[in-house]
């Protein structure tokens, strides 16, 4: 009896599904294609979505892309899953699915759900990379996504594979230098950063990471030499100037740090970190009057970081009996 009911139910469900002959589907696909070319995506969706299960690959792609053009990424992913499921060995279909998941994650407000989508996308991109190891876009998507989800160790492994597959290109070596240096692989960083500098002598980042690695090895003189050399070479690099400023600020060489932070602010007037460093350096160097407007600017840029040190500076001035104390306090209060 139960099986009979199930049979009847399935027949009813089958009767409710849209039926279409091959000829009618082909005509519909042709019409959808014409609408797609006219950028009439709602019409494409209207024509193709009811028959998505029966569509050939090009039809699925047009349907998925129409959803994408309308920003309906969840629907796009649904269609791409059908495409990828039907073409399990096609790295192209998997690639599109991976990107679709990334887009869906991008607009998903629920952080956990977005994370799950990205993790799935990582898995999909891994498949792409495995299926076609020479497909750089697949490698790049995988690597970038691993960085995005803060899987630094896995990103480094993939990058190493990338270096084997695509050779030691300047861009890959810059990445290797950065990951080695920030990941604490000091010995490797010294090698990879030197190689990176050799390959891209006009890119400033690797000089900073090399310097950082020297610091990590307690080779402070080499580190400073590298950084000062880079700062002279790249006056327009906020990163290099800010790094040099940070080094001298920590060494309490405030006139030097003020010079570098000042240069960093020139290089990028929107850099909150450089502006804050400049304010601190001027203040510590005894130029409290000059530091005040810089503190105010830094505080507007990044109140969460700056407000407390700004109040602390006001407090120190008050203890010294400085007439600037109240202006500092007022400035810090205006931060919020």
């Amino acid at each position: 009896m139960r099986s009979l009911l199930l049979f009847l139910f399935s027949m009813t469900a089958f009767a409710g599904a849209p039926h279409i002959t091959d000829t009618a589907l082909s005509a519909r696909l042709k019409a959808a294609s014409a609408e797609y070319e006219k950028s009439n995506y709602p019409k494409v969706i209207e024509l193709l979505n009811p028959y998505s299960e029966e569509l050939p690959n090009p039809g699925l792609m047009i349907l998925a892309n129409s959803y994408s053009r309308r920003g309906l990424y969840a629907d796009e992913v649904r269609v791409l899953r059908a495409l990828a499921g039907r073409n399990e060995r096609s790295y192209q279909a998997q690639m599109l699915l991976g990107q679709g998941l990334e887009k869906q994650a991008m607009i998903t407000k629920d952080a956990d759900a977005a994370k799950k989508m990205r993790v799935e996308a990582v898995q999909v991109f891994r498949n792409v990379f495995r299926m076609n190891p020479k497909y750089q876009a697949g490698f790049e998507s995988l690597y970038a996504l691993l960085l995005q989800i803060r899987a630094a160790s896995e990103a480094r492994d993939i990058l190493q594979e990338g270096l084997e597959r695509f050779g030691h290109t300047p861009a890959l070596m810059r990445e290797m230098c950065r990951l080695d240096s920030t990941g604490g692989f000091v010995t490797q960083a010294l090698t990879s950063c030197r190689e990176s500098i050799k390959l891209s002598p006009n890119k400033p980042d690797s000089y900073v990471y090399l310097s950082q690695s020297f610091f990590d090895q307690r080779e402070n003189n080499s580190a400073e030499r590298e950084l000062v050399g880079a700062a002279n070479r790249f006056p327009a690099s906020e990163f290099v100037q800010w790094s040099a400023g940070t080094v001298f600020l920590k060494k309490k060489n405030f006139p030097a740090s003020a010079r570098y932070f000042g240069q960093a602010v020139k290089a990028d007037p929107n850099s909150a970190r450089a502006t804050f460093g400049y304010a601190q350096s001027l203040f510590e160097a005894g130029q409290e009057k000059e530091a005040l407007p810089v503190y105010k600017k830094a505080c507007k840029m990044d109140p969460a970081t700056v407000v407390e040190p700004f109040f602390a500076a006001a407090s120190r001035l008050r203890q010294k009996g400085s007439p600037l104390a109240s202006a500092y306090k007022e400035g810090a209060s205006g931060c919020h």
Partner: protein
Amino acid sequence: MKKARMQIIFFLIGLISISASAQSKKRLDFNSYVQENYQILTHQKLDKNQLAFDELLPKAGTETTTNAPDFNNIKSNDSVWGSMPGGSNSQNQNSQQTQPTIQVPVPSPAPAAAPAAPGGENPNQ
């Protein structure tokens, strides 16, 4: 007269090629789809903690198509997957604005002698 006729012919050829180019822009294949996705995702990926991929994106003609299934485009017999995307829509971040945290050992107890600060920097260097 002959010159005028030639001009008309050239005009028509130009018109046809412009029309063909406009048509081909509308057609969807794998590469254009991937490229379009890059554009959408670039806004998200442009994170200061990530470096530039200006040289990472695949260059035309580097793809191996061993796994490409033989799908037919609706409009033609071209593979829907097409050829590789170009490199113009990568995460083209200015590498001068990266943002790691620099950790410098602080000398103790007294600060080391001040190294020479860079002088006479030319911002346009």
